[in-house]
C-alpha cells in the first residue's frame, strides 16, 4: 500500500508539470509580447508593467519563467493581481465559496443519483427504468447554462422558492439552487452509470451466493450488489471534480457568485496571468489527489482489489 501510494505520487509529478506548463505556455508563451495580452487595449500603467516583467521574468526563456514562478508557489508566493493584491489573499476569499458549492453539488449527485440508479437497475425494463433513462438523457442534452436559467426563472423568480442570485457571503442555504444546477448533469451520468453497473452485476456469482445463503434481500442489494457496482461510479466522481470546476465558471456567472469560477473568468478576460496560473495549479493538484483517492477507494469497495 505505502509503495503503491508513493509510486502513484511520483507518477503525478510529470502530469502536474505538464499540465501547469501547458497553461503557463498558453497564458504567457504565445507569440507576441505577453504584456500586450495581459494589459489589453488600454495598456498597463508603467509601475504595473515593471512589476509584471519582474514577476514573470519576461524576456528570459519560457522554461526559466516557468521554473521561477513554480519556485515562488512552493513558498506560497502566488504573485499579485493587477490591483496589487496578493493572489493568495484573493483566492482565500473565493475558494471557500466554491468548495461549499462543489460539496453541495457532490452530495446531491451521490445521494440522489446512486439510489435512483439502483432502483432503475433493479427494475430493468420497467416503467421507472425507462423514465430514468429518458429523463437522464434529456438532462444531459440540456446545456448547464440553459438549466441554470430555467431554474433561476421558474424556481427563483416565478415561484420564489430560492433566491435567484446569491449574496456576497454565499451561505450554504443560498447555494442550494446553484448546487442543484451545477450537479444536474453529473447527477444524470451517475444515475445511468449506477443503473448499468447494477444491471451487469445482478447476475454475478457472488450475488447468487448471497441469495442462496439466505441473506435478507436488503442486505444482498446494499452490501453485495450495490457495493460492487459502485466502482465505475467512483471512477466517474474522480474525473467529475474537473467538470464541476469547469461548470462552476458558468454556474457562478449565472447566479452572480464570487467564487473561484467567477474569479477565473474575470482573470481570463483581463489576462491576469498570476491569478489564472495559480488557480489552475491548485485545480490540477485537486484533480490528481482526488483520482489517487478514488484508486484507493477501489480496494475498499471490491475486496478482490489489493495494492501491493
Amino acid at each position, binding site marked *: 500500500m505505502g509503495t503503491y501510494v508513493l509510486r502513484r505520487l511520483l507518477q503525478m509529478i510529470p502530469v502536474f508539470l505538464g499540465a501547469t506548463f501547458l497553461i503557463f505556455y*498558453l497564458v504567457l508563451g504565445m507569440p507576441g509580447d505577453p504584456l500586450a495580452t495581459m494589459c489589453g487595449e488600454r495598456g498597463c500603467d508603467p509601475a504595473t508593467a515593471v512589476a509584471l516583467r519582474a514577476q514573470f521574468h519576461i524576456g528570459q526563456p519560457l522554461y526559466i519563467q516557468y521554473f521561477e514562478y513554480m519556485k515562488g508557489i512552493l513558498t506560497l508566493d502566488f504573485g499579485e493581481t493587477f490591483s496589487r493584491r496578493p493572489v493568495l489573499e484573493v483566492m482565500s476569499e473565493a475558494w471557500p465559496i466554491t468548495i461549499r458549492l462543489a460539496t453541495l453539488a457532490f452530495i446531491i449527485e451521490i445521494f440522489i443519483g446512486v439510489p435512483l440508479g439502483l432502483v432503475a437497475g433493479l427494475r430493468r425494463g420497467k416503467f421507472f427504468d425507462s423514465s430514468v433513462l429518458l429523463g437522464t438523457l434529456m438532462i444531459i442534452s440540456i446545456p448547464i447554462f440553459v438549466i441554470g436559467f430555467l431554474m433561476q*426563472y421558474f424556481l427563483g423568480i416565478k415561484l420564489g422558492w430560492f433566491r435567484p442570485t446569491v449574496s456576497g457571503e454565499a451561505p450554504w442555504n443560498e447555494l442550494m439552487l446553484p448546487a442543484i444546477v451545477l450537479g444536474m448533469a453529473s447527477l444524470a451520468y451517475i444515475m445511468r452509470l449506477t443503473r448499468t453497473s447494477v444491471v451487469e452485476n445482478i447476475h454475478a456469482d457472488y450475488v447468487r451466493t448471497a441469495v442462496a445463503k439466505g441473506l435478507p434481500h436488503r442486505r444482498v442489494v446494499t452490501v453485495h450488489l450495490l457495493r460492487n457496482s459502485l466502482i465505475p461510479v467512483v471512477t466517474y466522481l474522480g474525473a467529475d471534480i474537473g467538470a464541476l470546476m469547469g461548470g462552476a465558471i458558468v454556474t457562478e456567472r449565472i447566479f452572480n457568485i464570487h467564487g473561484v469560477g467567477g474569479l477565473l473568468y474575470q482573470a481570463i478576460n483581463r489576462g491576469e496571468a498570476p491569478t489564472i496560473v495559480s488557480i489552475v495549479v491548485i485545480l490540477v493538484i485537486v*484533480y490528481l489527489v482526488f483520482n489517487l483517492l478514488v484508486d484507493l477507494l477501489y480496494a475498499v469497495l471490491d475486496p478482490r482489489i489489493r495494492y501491493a
Partner: protein
Amino acid sequence: MPEPSSKTVMPAQDASTAALTLGASSEPQSLGKPRSLWSDAWHDLRRNPTFVISALLILLLILVAVFPSLFTSINPQRCDLLMGNDGRTPGHPFGFDRQGCDVYSRVIYGARASVTVGVLVTSGVVLIGGLIGAIAGFYGGAWDSLLSRITDVFFAIPILLFAIVFLSSFALRSIWTVVAAIMLVGWPSVARIMRASVISVKESDFVTAARALGASDMRILRRHILPNAIAPVIVVATILLGVFIVLEATLSYLGIGLPGSTVSWGGDINDAQASLRTAPHVLLYPSVALSITVLAFMLLGDAVRDALDPKLR
C-alpha cells in the same frame, strides 16, 4: 439480401436470456449467409424507433443548416430596435429579441454555426485522437507510455477552463479558433477509447494469423485492426458531437466563442439573459433548439451503441 433469419437478432427486451443462449447464437448462422457486425447493426438500427426519430431530426437539422432560406425569408441580421423584446406577431411566431431581430429566423440561422462546429470538431478529433490512440495501442512500449502521459496531462485540466484559456490567447475570434480550441480539449477521450479498443483487438487470432502470413505493420493496422476496433470510437464520436455542440454554445455564451457577427444559439442565449425577467421567450427558443439538437445526437449515439454492443443493453 432477404432476411435469412430473424433469430440472429437478439430480442431487445431481454438481454439476460440473450446471455444464456450466447453459446448457441452462432448456430442460426448456418441457416444463411452470416452477417457482419455492421450489417447486423444496421439491421437492428432500422427497427429501432429511437434511431429512426433521432436520424430524422438530424437530417432535418442538416437541411436547416445548409439551406436556412428554405425555412424563413426574414434576414436574421436585419433588426428593428422599436420591436425590441416584443412578443409574437403574425409572421413572427417567436417574437423579437432585445435588438428587435426576429427570433424565429435567428433560431433557424443559428443551426449552421452549431452543426458546422460539431461536424468539423468531431471529424478532426476522430482523426487525431484515433491516430494517437491507435499508435499507442498498437506499438505499446515507449510510444504508449509517452502518448498516454500526454493524454493524462490533457485530462488533468478541466475541459471548459482549458478551452477558455486557449481562446483568450487569440486576439481575433473566428469559427476556426473555436474549432481548434474544442479539438484541443476533445481528442484525449477519443485517443483513450481507441487505444483500449486496439489493444483488445491486437491479441486476436486473426491478427496473429495475418502476422504469420507476413503482413506489414501498416497492413495489419489498416486491414485487420482498425475495422474491428473502430466501433467504440464511432459510438463515442456520435455522443461527443452533441457534447461539442454544447461546448461551443457554452463558449459563445461566455462571450469568448464565436464572434458576435455570427448568428449562433449560444451567443443569442448570452444576449437574452439580460432580459430574462421581462422577456423570457427570447431565451427560451434558442435554448430549446440547442437542447433538441444535442438530444438528437445523444439518442443516436445510444441507439448506435445498443446496435454495436448488445451486451450493454
